[in-house]
């Protein structure tokens, strides 16, 4: 009894700490940029906005505009991207039992990139729910590729994981080749290489609350849905047959977990392009520190992923201002050494 009570409390404490950390980083990231706005002022503005208090304005009204119209949407966009990618990474690593699995493993990245590239070539300028054509095409490309890969990997009424990994790899290669072809003809196609590059390296491009309003429900819903599958993913660590022995409807749950992970990835990709390393490293780092139980792994990864990307995006915006470094570069430069440190220190990970 005592042990269980302690365990439950420890988990709640960890999630609480991560949650507080996330809020702190939200404020910190909102404070810095072309104009620095003091933290107390941001706090007061926010409380005013929430109609909790009515502090007299000790700041310029332009500051308020910067915070609420420019920085906060972007910072929250970063949280959503990080949380979505880290959760998707935890889902795919758990389901596929593959240490190299990341949110892009079954073709989402190639599909999103090709979709985005084609959209960049089109001369039309549509807006859909506050989104341009590029994010919509990236979202659709990612999901279409996963559906294609899943169906290609189907044998009879089963979809073995190994054939899915292979099909994912081959389809990704094919789509990447098509994209390379388009890029090599960029002059004739009127394709901006800078835009393609920016998409591939990752760049959080949230410019309005409208985008947040569309992406946030997808990401939050996806994370809650993922948590629903925590036990199933624990069972999947015994392999597909072992999961079936424990009462899991393997084929049905595999589709649902893949669909959730792919939707989370597509949602992230549509506002940030391909931010690498988050979905791979964050779940591993959380597993190394907190253990492999998906009930804690999934929510903790979501929060840690959010912190990680907000921090990386803050550095991306400010390190070489006014030049912006692609956020994917920062996530890799910080993520790789940190991950290696954890790996060397704990050894609580894979056993082969």
């Amino acid at each position, binding site marked *: *009894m005592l042990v*269980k009570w302690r365990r*439950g409390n420890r988990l709640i404490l960890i999630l609480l700490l991560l949650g507080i950390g996330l809020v702190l980083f939200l404020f910190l990231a909102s404070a810095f940029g072309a104009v620095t706005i003091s933290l107390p002022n941001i706090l007061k503005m926010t409380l005013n906005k929430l109609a909790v208090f009515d502090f007299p304005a000790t700041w310029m009204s332009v500051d308020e505009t910067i915070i609420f119209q420019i920085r906060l949407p972007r910072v929250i966009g970063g949280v959503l991207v990080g949380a979505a990618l880290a959760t998707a990474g935890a889902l795919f690593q758990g389901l596929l*039992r593959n*240490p190299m699995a990341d949110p892009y493993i079954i073709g989402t990245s190639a599909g999103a990139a090709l979709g985005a590239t084609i959209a960049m070539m089109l001369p039309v300028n549509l807006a859909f729910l506050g989104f341009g054509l590029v994010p919509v095409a990236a979202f659709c490309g990612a999901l279409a590729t996963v559906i294609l890969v899943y169906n290609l990997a189907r044998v*009879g009424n089963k979809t073995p994981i190994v054939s899915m990994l292979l099909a994912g790899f081959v389809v990704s290669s094919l789509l990447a080749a098509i994209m390379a072809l388009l890029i090599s003809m960029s002059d004739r196609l009127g394709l901006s290489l800078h835009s393609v590059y920016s998409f591939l390296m990752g760049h959080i491009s949230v410019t309005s609350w409208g985008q947040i309003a569309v992406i946030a429900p997808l990401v939050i819903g996806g994370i809650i849905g993922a*948590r*629903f599958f925590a*036990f199933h993913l*624990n*069972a999947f*660590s*015994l*392999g597909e*047959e*072992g999961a*079936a*022995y*424990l*009462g*899991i*409807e*393997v084929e049905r749950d595999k589709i649902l977990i893949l669909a959730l992970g792919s939707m989370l990835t597509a949602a992230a990709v549509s506002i940030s392009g391909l931010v690498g390393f988050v979905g791979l490293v964050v779940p591993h780092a959380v*597993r190394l520190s907190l*253990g*492999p*139980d998906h*009930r804690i792994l999934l929510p903790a990864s979501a929060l840690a992923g959010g912190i990680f990307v907000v921090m990386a995006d803050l550095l991306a915006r400010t390190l070489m201002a006014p030049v912006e470094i692609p956020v994917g570069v920062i996530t890799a430069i910080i993520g790789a050494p940190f991950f290696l440190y954890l790996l060397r220190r704990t050894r*609580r*990970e*894979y*056993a*082969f």
Partner: protein
Amino acid sequence: MISLQISQVYFSYLDGLVLHDINLSIRAGEMVGLLGPNGSGKTTLIKLVSGILKPSQGEIRLDGSSLSRLSRKSVARSLAIVPQQFHIPFAFTVGEVVMLGRIPFLKAFAEESKVDSQFVANALELVGISDLKKRRFDELSGGERQKVILAMALAQQPRLLLLDEPIVHLDIAHQVEILELVKGFNVEQGLTVIGAMHDLNLASLYFDRLVLLKEGRVWADGVPAQVLTEDIIRDVFSASVRVQPHPTAGVPHIVVMPKGSIVKQQ
């Protein structure tokens, strides 16, 4: 009381028929060993009974209800399987692995309750590995791991325990230890056991009833003395053996006869 009824079951993989017209009824509390050469269909029959494969024809009834009509979850609440081995790529502790056996009883989002923890503690106790609870599963020896998997199966509170050659990768001491444990659960708690076995002598010692398969058909079915005869073993395994009574248990004990003069005679 009949626990498991297999009626006219046929099964084929994509490339051919594996099981022909299998008919078996197994009463609650029996301990039945499935024997046969490689490829005779032992493992396939275990998988059919576990419900993860569906018969091409025929029906399997578990405690009166047709297996194909039961959900995976309700099957997992009635029977548990111990396979040859489980590979777990993540660093779960022993306690966490045994707790996986409670998954069929948990609701989504629910934490495991005191009752679940009690079942886990009991299972660890029964298998005699309570002291391993905090250890990491992947750091254990093969024999210890298999005991953990047995404890996980027991945490499922099964009425029927299926074994799919659970001891082939173990040394002789652990082989005997696992079979002694399973036999104990069978005798003391009336747990019904069906086990695919490779080692004829161990099967003879620990199982009350043996079913011998050859090329997907039941070739012999009965107590060890009826099934493990020199003639039957020659017909099914094409192996030349001598059958003697076990020195203390009296059940058949098989001694392999070398074919040529390669092995020196004394």
